[in-house]
């Protein structure tokens, strides 16, 4: 972690996990790795906090899970998006963009819409 690391605001981790899972079923560690790779390691995640978020979304019906074998042949729990989760992702994504645009307009950032 460096001074350039960004701490995720509340709810953002759920959004990122949902987005990553659009690529297919993944276990928790793979989700974390995917987020960090896409964020070019600048998103500071306390890795364990992903799991309460995954469990909440599962209880909400946005994710489904099942145990399976990981790429290193370890037993791992795999999560996949449900139709309700895809719908939830669209809503969350839209809300995030509106928030981002609004914050960008206030800050006067020329590239706020791409945030």
């Amino acid at each position, binding site marked *: 972690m460096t001074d350039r690391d960004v701490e995720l605001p509340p*709810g953002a981790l*759920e959004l990122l996990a949902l987005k990553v899972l659009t690529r297919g079923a993944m*276990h*928790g*560690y793979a989700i*974390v790795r995917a987020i960090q790779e896409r964020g070019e390691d600048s998103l500071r995640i*306390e*890795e*364990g*906090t992903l*799991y*309460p978020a995954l*469990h*909440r979304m*599962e*209880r*909400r*019906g946005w994710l489904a899970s099942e145990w399976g074998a*990981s790429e*290193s042949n*370890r*037993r*791992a*729990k795999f999560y996949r998006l449900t139709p309700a989760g895809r719908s939830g992702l669209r809503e*969350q994504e839209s809300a995030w963009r509106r928030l981002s645009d609004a914050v960008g307009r206030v800050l006067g950032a020329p590239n706020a819409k791409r945030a």
Partner: protein
Amino acid sequence: MSTFLERFGIHARSPDPRPLSEIAADIDEELASHVDASAGALADEGLDVGSARAEALRRFGDYGRIRRECARTQMGERIVLQRIQVVLTVVLIAVVGLLFLSNRESQAHERAALDAEKQVMAALIARLDAQLAADADPTPAIDRRSAANAKTYSIGSGGYLNWDGQEMDLVSASGTWEEYFHEQDTSWRHGLKVVGKLAELPGTQGVEILTQIWGRLSVEHREQIMKPFVFDGGHPHAIEVLALGYGDEQTSVKERAVLYLYTYSWKDLWNGEGSGSAWFAENRERPVAEVLRESALLWAREMAGMAAQHEHLVDDYVGRFLEATESVRPETFAKAGVDLGPILEEAGVCALGPDRFADLSPKNQMLAERVLTWCKP
């Protein structure tokens, strides 16, 4: 983004039905799997096993807190539901307990009421049995009552008749009549029935017995007692019975006495204790027919005198005078052998035509016309 209900551990899906221990083991395995994978990746990058595991745990964060959060998410709902279940069970037990106690108390009341009713029924059945046995007995009822009374009262002396015709002294006879009245203290019909028979006793017996027991009789009966005496105008002791009612401390009884007294006095004896006492002092011992005749004559003379003195009758004054006749019962005069027509004629009232009362209010005119109808034979 949690919803409002999720704050309380309530989620869209039904709770995980597995045992809590199994769910907890799943969480442990999942979190451990992450740390193992992370440590393995770090080891692959060149860290020794111990350092890799330490770094993996550091990156994972507060393991204990995260484990608790996962458990709360997975099991919190069940815990909340279990707590609600426990609270509801306690409430239910309390309600059932209260209902049980309430029911037991209610049953105790019902048992007591039932016992009381049983006792009443037993008494009624016993009475009915006695009545049936008595009905089967060929001895006349009147004799049986006398036989029963003989246990308490001295029979055969004094000449006073008890309520079934047996002779005894005044006190004993009065006791039997009083007992008869008390059989149904609150029934005015019963009181009227008893006194109807009492009024038929010869001489002064009825009045003497009533004088003995008057104060101990119920109000319902005292209100009825005067009727057979005063409605039968020929009863020689009507005025003495009216005196008992007039002296009664119960207003409802005295009111009835005053109402009946209009026929005998042709006056309002309610207002002014003195007037009533004086009237009774003067008339109590006199024959009823004589009192009836004299009262009517005095009234008629005064009425005729007013008509003679005043060309126009004053409604207020004459009205009060006429109102005294409102409760006069002419049939009482007939039963007492007193012809009311000649009395009114003699005083000059019958000579006053209806036109003479034309100055009066409609009500007073009606009262005057009623009096004039008594002039006709």
